[in-house]
Structure formats: structure tokens, C-alpha cells
């Protein structure tokens, strides 16, 4: 009874949030899975449109369209994560040693993060416009012409080739590299100056200093950065929607296809199955990570 009196009020104070998160996160995920397993028939012809059960998932995964969307997502994710990590780390290394105007550079690199994906997307739709030739091209293609490098003109994301989504990663990198830079900078700043001095006294070159002293210590930051970028990439919707339009097959990923399944195709069952697959991919990465950080945090505190 005394225990209840000590922790009871705390539980009471959190209970509104527990109920809300319980319903709106976990309850709705459950309902969504339930929807995804339904058997449905066409209203007019009475033909079965979704067989029900796990067959809904295998059917979806077998369609050419979904495989194409998954492939696009893979290309986008690989290029986006690599590019963002590289630029983020490079900028952080360039800035962490202290340079004139550091604050200005930091603010410039980070400012795209403050802008919505829609506003960025509308701008990049113009920049990545596929039209070519002096009197047609706008955006980057026109800039390349102006700079005397017409061979650099590209159809960008609307290229029918298999790697077109690499172009879609460019605006995403533009938007998030500054964020990763900020994470790495905070990581570097957390390392005491003594360690650098010690390494220099021991005769380490700058490269050895980074390779053996600094980089190992920011690897936890790199792991969080990878998880953040990975889950952002899986659910990337706004940017693709506003660059490629609502109904683009060439730039389709599962997250945008879900909108098409739900509205133009009015097939909520298949859309729910798709959404569950996206959730599963994210969960496979995020849940072990959450358990891992929870554990290391406790270990650190004990």
C-alpha cells in the first residue's frame, strides 16, 4: 500500500499519455495489420480483389510494381545515406578544428534542415527539371550549359534507367547533411583536448590522430546518425511527392505507392499491407537499437 502511494501519483500523471500513445500508436498499428489481412471483393463483379491473410502480402510482394518501388527505395537509401554521412563527416572535420567564421558556415550548412520537405521539393523540382538544350533547359541543366559543360545535363530522377533514384537523393542529402554535421561536431567537441595533445606528443600524424583517437570515439554518433537517416529514408514521402508529383511511377517508393493504393486505386487493404511492410523494415532496424541504447545507458549509470 505504501508503495502504491509512492508511485501511484506518477502513474496517474502519465496515464493520459499512456492511453493516447497506446491507442494512436499501438492500437492503430494493430488495426492497420488487421485491415491488411482482410479478404475483399469487388462491389460490382463480386470477384475477389484481395484473397485475405498473408496471401495479401505475398501477392503484393510479387507484383512488378512493388518490386520496382522497393528497388527505388534501396537505391535512394544507399545513395542518400552514403552522401549524407560523407558530407556531414567532411563538414564536421573541416569545422571541428576551429576556423574563422565557423558559426556562419555551421548556420549555412544547417539551414536546409529548418525548411519543410515540401518547400525544398518545390525548389528542387525546378532545379532537377529534365528538359535539355539551351532554349528548353531550366534548373541545373541550364546552369551546366551556362558553365560550358553540356554533357552534364541529365534527366535526373525521371530517367527510365534503374539508378534514377540516385538523383532523388541529391535534395535529400542537401537537406540533411547539415544535421549529420551537427551530430558529428557535438561528438568531436565531447572529446577532451588532452587526448589530442597526448597523441601529438606521442608523434601521431593528423591522419593517425583521426584514425586511431577521434573516429573510434565518435562511432556511437555514427551509429545513431545511420539509424536516423535509415528510418527517414524508409518513410520519405513529402520530398518525392512534391518533386515527382502525386502519380509518378519512375520515382515510386513504397511510401508514395501507398498513397496511390489508397486513393486512386481505392484499395485500403493492399495499402495497409504495404504500410505494414514499411513499418516492419523500420522496426527491424530501430527496435534492436532502442534496446541497445537503453542497455548501454543503464550500464553507464550503474
Amino acid at each position, binding site marked *: 500500500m505504501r508503495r502504491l502511494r509512492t508511485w501511484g501519483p506518477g502513474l496517474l500523471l502519465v496515464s493520459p499519455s499512456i492511453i493516447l500513445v497506446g491507442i494512436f500508436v499501438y492500437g492503430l498499428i494493430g488495426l492497420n495489420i488487421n485491415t491488411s489481412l482482410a479478404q475483399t471483393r469487388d462491389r460490382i463483379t463480386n470477384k475477389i480483389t484481395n484473397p485475405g491473410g498473408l496471401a495479401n502480402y505475398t501477392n503484393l510482394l510479387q507484383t512488378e510494381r512493388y518490386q520496382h518501388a522497393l528497388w527505388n527505395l534501396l537505391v535512394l537509401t544507399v545513395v542518400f545515406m552514403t552522401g549524407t554521412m560523407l558530407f556531414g563527416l567532411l563538414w564536421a572535420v573541416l569545422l571541428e578544428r576551429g576556423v574563422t567564421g565557423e558559426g556562419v558556415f555551421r548556420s*549555412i550548412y*544547417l539551414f536546409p534542415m529548418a525548411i519543410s520537405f515540401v518547400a525544398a521539393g518545390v525548389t528542387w523540382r525546378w532545379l532537377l527539371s529534365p528538359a535539355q538544350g539551351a532554349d528548353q533547359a531550366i534548373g541545373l541543366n541550364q546552369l551546366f550549359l551556362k558553365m560550358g559543360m553540356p554533357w552534364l545535363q541529365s534527366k535526373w530522377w525521371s530517367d527510365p534507367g534503374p539508378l534514377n533514384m540516385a538523383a532523388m537523393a541529391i535534395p535529400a542529402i542537401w537537406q540533411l547533411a547539415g544535421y549529420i554535421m551537427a551530430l558529428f561536431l557535438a561528438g568531436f567537441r565531447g572529446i577532451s583536448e588532452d587526448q589530442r595533445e597526448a597523441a601529438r606528443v606521442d608523434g601521431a600524424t593528423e591522419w593517425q590522430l583521426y584514425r586511431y583517437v577521434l573516429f573510434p570515439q565518435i562511432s556511437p554518433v555514427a551509429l545513431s546518425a545511420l539509424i536516423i537517416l535509415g528510418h527517414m529514408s524508409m518513410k520519405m514521402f513529402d520530398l518525392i511527392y512534391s518533386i515527382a508529383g502525386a502519380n509518378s511511377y519512375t520515382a515510386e517508393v513504397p511510401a508514395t505507392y501507398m498513397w496511390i493504393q489508397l486513393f486512386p486505386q481505392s484499395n485500403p487493404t493492399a495499402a495497409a499491407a504495404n504500410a505494414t511492410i514499411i513499418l516492419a523494415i523500420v522496426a527491424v532496424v530501430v527496435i534492436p537499437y532502442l534496446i541497445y541504447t537503453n542497455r548501454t545507458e543503464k550500464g553507464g549509470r550503474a
Partner: protein
Amino acid sequence: MTTTLEPPLQTRTPTGRPKRRRPTPMTALQFILLVLFASVVLTPLYVVLVTSFKSGMDVSPATAWDLPHTWSTDGWVSAATRLAPAVGRSLILALAAAILSSILGSMNGYVFAKWKFPGADIVFTAFLFGMFIPYQAVMIPLQRLLLDLQMHGLPWLDGIPRLILVHTIYGIPICTLIFRNYYATAVPNEILEAARVDGAGMLRTYASIVLPVSIPGFVVTLIWQFTSAWNDFLFALFLTSPRNGPVTYALQELAGGQNPDYPSIMAGVLVASLPTLIVYIALGRYFISGLMSGSVK
């Protein structure tokens, strides 16, 4: 998971002043690279600004990258007129959602940091997962649930009120995390213990000891939630219409026409980004703190 509420990025060494090396060829190269990257990052901003001040006649592919021939504010006027109602709606949405989820986050963070109940850590981890879920995975039942609520007893639950509800709820996890980490270091256990000895209950302690020192935490969560609610498009697209939706939806509509009017589209981009840009410029370091807490360690 650590939230740094001090400016986390300053150049201080333990001895005090920033350390600057003597200029060498390396530092020169470093500086040149930084300037180069900065100009690449700013290129889209240049395009947006320049195009927004062009007149309709002035927009042709060949001069796309040039400064306006004649400076015109037509684009700005047309964008401002078209976006104004949605900007107002977005302001109400972002402010309300930010305040509500910050209040909930503060109460939760206090409990998870200082007043744990059995199983609190599991509940907290379950909250955190809510931060990472792709919202697509709740969207279909969410849409139905909100429609049901609107049909049966809550007729006002449409447009902005609907988005306020949704953003408040899905903002709970991050706000809880930020406040939990903040209280863990900002409120010493000894003070809470002293309050308990003096006979203050949990709520009393919260109101008279914890809340007064919560301002830095609130600044971070308010900025974070304001920015994410303002910038959201996914919930807006699925749960509202251009008629009653926020500015991201309106901008998407403005930009989506058959014959794009680039000056007004680009001015619209700026109009729709101004509030978050102002927040970023004025309160940059708190903005960064929010970003940091979205990560871990």
C-alpha cells in the same frame, strides 16, 4: 540518450578561448573548401530569391540563372494573397500542437526521470518507438477513426483541430524524451527529497520546484514541435483538404498547376518557410538542441 541544453557546438577548449592555429596552406585549403560547400548549399536559395523577384515576362529558360531584368514584386503579392489563409491556419496549428505536447512531455518527463513506477522503463521505451514509426503504418485506421469521431459527436474535428490533435499525440514521445533527459540533470534528487520530507506531494513538488526550472526544456520542445508541425505534409495530405489544410498543402497546390508561374511559386516557397527560418535564425542553438535530442548519445 543525452540532451544537451547548453549550446553544444561551441569551440571552447577546456582552457577557455577557442584554439586557432597559425594560417598554413592546410588552413587555406580548409577555408576554400568550406566556402565552396557553403555556396553549393546556398544555390537553391539564390534561385528561389532571384526567381521570386522576376516578372512573368522575365521568366525564360535562357535567363533562368540571371538576376531579374526588372525587379518585380508581382510574384510575392500573388503568393502572399494565395497563401495567407493557410499561413494563418498553420500558425494556429503549430502553436497549439507545440504547447499541448510540451505540457504533456513535461509531466511525463518528470515522472520518467524522478518518480518512476514499476515498468516505467518499458513504457518509456514503448513511447520512444512511437517516435520512429512511419506514420503510413497508422494512417488508414487513423483516417477512419477521426472521421468516425467527427461524424459521431465531434463535428469540429476537421481541418486544423484534427491536425492539432494528431500532432499533439505523435509529439508526445519526443517531448517526453527531451524533458526526461533535461530533468535527470537539471533537478537534483536532494531537492526533491527535501520537498518530500517537508510533506510536499508529487504534484506540489512538480508545480513549485520542477516547473519553475523547466523553461530551457520548454524552449527546446516548443521550437521542435512548432517546426515539425509547421513543416508536416503527410498528415495534412491524408487528413485535410486544401481548403482547410496548412500552408504546406497550399504551397503544394500553388506549385502543382499546369502552367507553373515560377515567380509566385518561388515567392510561395519563401512565404511558407519564413516562420521556421526566423525561428532557426533567432533561436538557432535551441533548434540544434532539439535536433540533437532526436538522436541518441
